[in-house]
């Protein structure tokens, strides 16, 4: 069997790696340490590549939150509930795409942790809405702090943000009313949680906007 030269083998290397291993190429690899080393390297790269995906992260939760709002606003997602949530929910998703990505400040994270705790609290607490609604007080405090600092920055989106805060407050009020009327309704609680979360997101954006304008 005639053996091939190194440059001939290099031209066959692509097909070789795809499993096309003809006799003359096999003979060359066996007899040429340099080409064998080349093949070994490519096989090692191929074998190591899948390990790159082992620690692939999930995208942050905000990616879905923003996407969902956008899809609801466009009417692609249709919400299903006794209440017309799509009509009543705050329509400030467009704002999420206009303002910079929120840098999650410590206060914002604290709020989200509190909100998460409120959502996952035992069902027993559902008959006592006060602990959940106490979170609203935390949000109100955060709102007073962030909005006052933001007003001083005279940002061009200030009016938009204020308008959206009013909308989200109105939405929260609707959700709170529903939870008061039906403390055991998980859907209503979920919407209240989302409403609080949206307000926290909005306040976070205001904070960041204020910071970036300073």
């Amino acid at each position, binding site marked *: 069997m005639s053996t091939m030269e*190194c440059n001939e083998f*290099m*031209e066959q*290397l*692509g097909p070789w*790696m*795809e499993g096309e291993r003809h006799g003359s190429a096999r003979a060359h690899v066996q007899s040429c*340490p*340099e080409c064998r*080393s*080349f093949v*070994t*390297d*490519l096989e*090692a*790269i*191929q074998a*190591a*590549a*899948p*390990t*790159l*995906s*082992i*620690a*692939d*992260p*999930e*995208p*942050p939760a*905000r*990616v*879905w939150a*923003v*996407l*969902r709002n*956008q*899809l*609801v606003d*466009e*009417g*692609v*997602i*249709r*919400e*299903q509930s006794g209440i017309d949530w799509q009509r009543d929910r705050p329509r400030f998703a467009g704002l999420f795409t206009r303002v910079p*990505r929120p840098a999650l400040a410590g206060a914002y994270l604290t709020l989200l942790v509190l909100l998460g705790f409120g959502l996952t609290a035992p069902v027993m607490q559902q008959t006592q809405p006060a602990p959940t609604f106490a979170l609203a007080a935390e949000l109100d405090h955060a709102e007073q702090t962030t909005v006052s600092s933001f007003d001083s920055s005279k940002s061009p989106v200030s009016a938009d943000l204020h308008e959206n805060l009013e909308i989200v407050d109105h939405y929260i009020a609707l959700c709170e009313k529903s939870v008061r009327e039906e403390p055991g309704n998980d859907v209503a609680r979920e919407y209240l949680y989302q409403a609080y979360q949206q307000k926290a997101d909005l306040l976070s954006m205001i904070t960041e906007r204020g910071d970036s304008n300073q």
Partner: protein
Amino acid sequence: MQLPGQLTHRSYGCVLTGSVARVRRTEPGEMPEAEAIRLAQQGDAAAFERLYRLHSRRVYSLCLRMVSNVAEAEDLTQEAFLQLFRKIATFRGESAFSTWLHRLAVNVVLMKLRKKSGNEMSLEQVTEPDEEAGGPRRDFGAPDLTLAGSIDRVNLQRAVEQLPPGYKTVFVLHDVQGYEHNEIAEIMGCSIGNSKSQLHKARVRLRELLHEAVRAKAREERKAAGTASGSSGED
């Protein structure tokens, strides 16, 4: 027989078939992908979220690997899913759902890279021009150094980041995410032969980059050893 939308997955160490093989495993009681697609086509909110949860990690990883920037990868992931969900009513299952989604994601990423570079780039243009014409370069005369044992996730990831976008896309889709060449051809809008060629060139380029990294590390170690022996000689 292979059904439309059901493609064979080349996995590593186990045999998996179907598009679900590439996504997070469906646990008992969870909505299957086909059902989620059907319900999403009717606007069902839970179905959209289900599809997002099934595929978001892979799409985000692809974007992150392509742009090496977390904020940009988030935006690109969002944009790919937005385009997908806007068009979901038109999905008829001619190709696997994940292939369709990845085609959108790759297009979104390449569009972003084109905008960044300020000019139009075809698949060929996003590779390295000096390797377009010929086969792989070989370091004839270089020391017979093999990479065996010196490839780890960190240095391989670093090398992948340095690949041109075209090579990187095919390498990530094939060698990292496990897509077949026929699927990559569909995702990237190129021929199967082109996909194979890009992959081979990507691996050869990675070999060069990894060898450079190994040599640089060896130089640093020699330098450090020299410094240390110099210091001890002064004592």
